[in-house]
């Protein structure tokens, strides 16, 4: 697969390490979250057949973590963002 890196352009997905669903960025608030919240965060996944927001770490590149929107049925990629920029919004 080819991931269109926002800074570096098209890069082979083999340069990346897959970290899982982008929902991993939504870590529960340690002050307020319940045990159930932590369970759901750590263990439950939407796992959609279709567009999926997921994290790819550019381990063999610039070490950015990207949020890639990819269709799990066709592998078509429709969006790529820098995770740190999205997170700091």
């Amino acid at each position: 697969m080819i991931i269109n890196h926002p800074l570096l352009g098209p890069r082979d997905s083999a340069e990346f390490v897959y970290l899982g669903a982008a929902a991993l960025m939504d870590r529960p608030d340690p002050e307020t979250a319940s045990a159930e919240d932590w369970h759901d965060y750590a263990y439950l996944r939407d796992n959609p057949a279709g567009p999926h927001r997921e994290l790819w770490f550019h381990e063999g590149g610039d070490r950015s973590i990207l949020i890639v929107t990819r269709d799990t049925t066709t592998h078509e990629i429709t969006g790529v963002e820098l995770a740190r920029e999205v997170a700091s919004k």
Partner: protein
Amino acid sequence: MRYSGFKVIKEALTGHKGWKPAWRDPDPQPHYDIVIIGGGGHGLATAHYLASVYGQHKVAVIEKGWIGGGNVGRNTTIIRSNYLLDGNEPFYEFSLKLWEGLEQDLNYNAMVSQRGIMNLIHSDAQRDAFIRRGNAMILNGADAEYLDLAQIKKEYPFLNFDDARFPIKGGLAQRRGGTVRHDAVAWGYARAADSRGVDIIQNCQVTGIRIEDGKCRGVETSKGFIGAGRVGCAVAGNSSRLMAKAGMRLPIESHVLQAFVSEGLKPVLPGVITFGAGHFYVSQSDKGGLVFGGDIDGYNSYAQRGNLPVVEDVCEGGMAIMPMIGRARLLRMWGGIMDMSMDGSPIIDRTHIDGLYFNGGWCYGGFKATPASGYAFAHLLARDEPHETATAYRFDRFRTGHMIDEKGMGNQPNLH
């Protein structure tokens, strides 16, 4: 219709006029005691044991395509019970015992071939871990054997002992492990279940799960509503899609696992061999093809196809440990959807919805589990309590912290 030596000879001499369809092609009845969603190995095995062991005969298996078209028809056919943890080992050993009696049980030859499985060891730490595993297997009543380098050289002279990057230090063997003709497993279970009155309904897509006041009443399908006292889901890689229809999120991700077969070759491999310092395992089919595989591609996918990097990774492992296969040719590669769970172990459990039961999270170990999975799921569906070998396979183990994590990789499915 029973298969027998006499029958085979008679048909051969009379032009094979007498063979009947292996299973019927019935229209769905309005209501069944138990409806199983998924005409794969696990679903069909569940139906067989429901009918043959638990006396359930008003049973239907609903398959969206053709039976056996899922992972049971696209795996590397390995059976083994070489697990480490108490939650797993008794279950897989139970499965291996069922494999050993399968032909007679089904009156169908699925070519169970116990030519052994051998895990290669390449470091001291790996040896420590495999010895712990081997001991766990024996303490659970399974067989395990530690092989030193000399034994391995004797039994597997074609491995790379000359210039290995990670030299072979030993191996853990399970002689009762082996391979099975995978398609025949689906067909054998289907035929046996059908002969006991189970309706196998192909090309019937489940479009919804009907739930009324917290109870599951049946399934909406492309062939209309089918009522059911209990509904069991056994759809492997499609578990999340199906259970979403019941409003459930699962501790499962769907990933693609590729598998490979070479051109037919004269027999060279005694059994299954797994490379401990790379992603490669291999066996040889009764037709002579080297059947091999490696790691999952590592990203969520329902596409049933993978990409080159993993193909290369697997072949690199193969050449590293078995450099004689360099001139053998890869004939075909394919991909299956693996229901990768959060700790690498399966789930066979009730759901919070009365009458709705779930079987999934098999990762890439589903094939070897087929008989026990069917048996345990049948037990759960018939008795509404877990089978003794499957008590650990609960949904709530992640809530309580009782994960069954053979690989120690934690809640990252693509690492299991």
